[in-house]
């Protein structure tokens, strides 16, 4: 089903995280969180298996708490559509260390590939821009992905948003941990926080 001019989601996520240094990455519910794990497990990976629509807001809370850390949310078009209001909330707070990359296959891939709103009408880049996220890009090439990945490390120039058009191929599932407290406390530990 994949079209030749669309990007491969795993290649995109691997490129976003290739030179991650101190980045904390949040993977939205669905294939995005699996892609993040497929790119290599990491103590600073926040894998979501629920809370659809919440990925960008988890990113905002973390970015505000740790303003010097680059925070990268990687999520799908369906998950982002459900939390579209959070783009307005982020546009108002303007956390300069927060980046959001939407892997946009224009479909709900986990549930049978039903067409999403971005296939025909909704323009997430336009929404992000209109919500006050000035650096909002439509990315269609790996060169564009690599440029965005580099920009993520500039914690003084965000927030930034990218919609990356990917093909709708359903890839083999590679599943990260489903234990939320383990995932969260592993990140906290890596950031130097003690258990309560």
């Amino acid at each position: 089903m994949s079209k030749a001019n669309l990007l491969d989601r795993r290649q995109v996520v691997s490129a976003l995280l290739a030179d991650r240094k101190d980045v904390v990455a949040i993977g939205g519910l669905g294939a995005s969180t699996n892609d993040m794990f497929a790119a290599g497990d990491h103590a600073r990976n926040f894998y979501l298996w629920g809370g659809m629509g919440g990925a960008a807001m988890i990113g905002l809370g973390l970015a505000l708490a740790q303003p010097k850390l680059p925070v990268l949310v990687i999520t799908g078009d369906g998950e982002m559509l459900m939390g579209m209001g959070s783009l307005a909330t982020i546009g108002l707070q303007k956390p300069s260390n927060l980046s959001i990359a939407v892997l946009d296959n224009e479909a709900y891939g986990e549930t049978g590939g039903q067409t999403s709103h971005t296939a025909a009408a909704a323009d997430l880049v336009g929404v992000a821009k209109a919500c006050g996220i000035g650096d909002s890009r439509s990315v269609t090439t790996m060169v564009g992905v690599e440029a965005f990945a580099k920009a993520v490390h500039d914690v003084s120039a965000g927030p930034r948003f990218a919609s990356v058009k990917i093909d709708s191929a359903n890839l083999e599932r590679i599943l990260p941990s489903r234990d939320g407290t383990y995932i969260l406390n592993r990140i906290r530990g890596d950031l130097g926080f003690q258990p309560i």
Partner: protein
Amino acid sequence: MHARADAADTAADSGTHWPDDIFATLQRFDVRQVPYVPDAGHSKLIQRVLASSTMRGIPLTTEEEGVALLAGAWTGGQRGVLLMQSSGVGNCINMLSLIPILRFPFLTLVTMRGEWGEFNPWQVPMGSTTQGVFELSGVKVLRASTAAEVPAVLEAAAAQAYNALTPTAVLLSQRLIGAKVFTK
């Protein structure tokens, strides 16, 4: 039009101090992020938060954003509190599932509508189910009905939320905040 009439037992002298009591407790517990959907009953507290140098007030488009925000804040080492009114609790339901899964400290302060002299029938269904929704979602509920009991209730709520990771909602009753007045 949108003023509130103080309930008889919380009028004037004591009635206006309870938001300051809440603010002082939140400050003492080192609360840093304060996401909110505005409510008239929270207006004084929101003013205090927005004027604070240690707390960040974060207006939301819908209340569920605040639940996710607090998970992220805690991951980054900060405590938060979510301010909303009772009708917003329904907007949070699925996102409340993050709380037992991730085990982050969750405290929310909810101004009640749909009870004690309510004028607007549209507020009653959600106001009537607010406590039940929290309890079914694993959030403990405490209530403050008079200004005099606000400090102790807030202290207990913050202590169990932040020290014992017990998800807690404080319902600030309509009797405390006063029923909304629509006509003079």
